[in-house]
């Protein structure tokens, strides 16, 4: 059983693969930005003394963390397109798969981000809020000016690591036949009968990007630790 590798279909497919990579990055970026904003709100709700808010946030986080990502994405592929075409009166042919993927990822990742951010908020000593309050700041001001900036500085490595995992997870959108980087590689391989080569190539690209990114995070963390120890 000798398999003859043939990489010749890759160079010509690069523009198409790049289009796929752009979709992967677009989904990642949206999910990170929305995830951090909505995740911060969820974390603050969960730590709030207003019980219904805390319950809502806890329910949301536990729900999304207990369901496989694939299923969340599948539901969104099935529901969101209908919802969007219905609400905005789009023609049935409009491609809303990308939008539904972005929404699905963003809502799912928010649950994870909110847990990271909650830990970050709790890592800021209570005395900081007391000091801010003693200076006459409202709770919202103390949060915005004193607690969150410190919490985020401590959290940046974790948030970036989560973003790297998220980038890998975007490959799951292949099941909606949306041509992200992985989907594009699969399509080219399928077309040319060179699936093994294309998937090896895609794997190498994922590895290279994620490894480089985590090295950067590591270097940042070292710098951060040095700064704190100062």
């Amino acid at each position: 059983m000798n398999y003859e590798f043939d990489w010749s279909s890759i160079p010509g497919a690069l523009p198409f693969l790049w289009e796929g990579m752009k979709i992967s990055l677009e989904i990642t970026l949206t999910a990170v930005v929305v995830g951090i904003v909505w995740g911060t709100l969820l974390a603050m709700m969960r730590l709030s003394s207003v019980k219904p808010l805390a319950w809502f946030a806890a329910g949301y986080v536990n729900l999304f963390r207990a369901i496989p990502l694939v299923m969340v994405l599948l539901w969104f592929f099935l529901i969101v397109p209908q919802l969007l075409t219905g609400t905005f009166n789009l023609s049935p042919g409009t491609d809303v798969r990308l939008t539904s993927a972005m929404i699905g990822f963003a809502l799912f990742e928010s649950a994870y981000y909110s847990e990271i951010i909650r830990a970050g908020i709790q890592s800021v000593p209570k005395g900081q809020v007391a000091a801010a309050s003693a200076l006459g700041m409202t709770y919202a001001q103390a949060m915005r000016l004193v607690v969150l900036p410190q919490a985020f500085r401590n959290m940046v490595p974790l948030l970036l690591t989560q973003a790297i995992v998220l980038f890998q997870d975007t490959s799951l959108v292949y099941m909606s036949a949306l041509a992200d980087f992985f989907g594009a590689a699969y399509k080219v391989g399928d077309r040319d009968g060179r699936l093994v080569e294309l998937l090896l190539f895609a794997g190498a690209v994922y590895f290279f990007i994620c490894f480089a990114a985590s090295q950067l995070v590591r270097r940042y963390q070292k710098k951060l630790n040095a700064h704190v120890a100062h």
Partner: protein
Amino acid sequence: MISIHNVSKHYGSFQVLTDCSTEVKKGEVIVVCGPSGSGKSTLIKCVNGLEPFQSGTISVNGISVGDPKTNLSKLRSKVGMVFQHFELFPHMSITDNLSIAQVKVLGRSKDEARDKGLKLLDRVGLKAHAEKFPGQLSGGQQQRVAIARALAMDPICMLFDEPTSALDPEMINEVLDVMVELAQEGMTMMCVTHEMGFARKVANRVIFMDQGRIVEDDTKEAFFANPRSERAQQFLAKILSH
């Protein structure tokens, strides 16, 4: 200026404060001392509402702290507080630490707040450190910045919660010097501290607490000469014998 009347507080079934009453007049310096766990820090935190209390009343400058209708943030902006662990904001430069609340709470312009902050920084002898971050200063220096930060709000009175307990011995005096100067300028001060030298020098009265109660509340002369309660006698004997 500060009047505390029959204040009691409990966490669940644990009684932290029992029927505490005292009065601080304008310009007075009151030292609160007592063994650890006696409730002195809790009492001083009740004065600006950082700790809630279940019964009794506290009023500062005629405004009731426990009243739900009171705008606590506004009241706190007029009451300076210095903490045991300094609590400077580590992500801001010293200048920003001094000006942030002036700008965000009092609505002063950035330039005005900066000038005021620098003036006070000069007063506590740290003008050269204006652009540094809190982590680059020693404990004593950080605490002096914290005092300047509180003074920048033009407080009507100052609360000190064990301001020297977290400091290395050689840094205690630089902080006490600033406090003594402040007292001599007529600032109304309530200080939780074990620094009896400070009490002897500037206090008008000394309050001694034990197990959540105010056991002694007397002039410093009377307190040091002949404390009435046995508990205070023991306490003084222990901390003054060395």
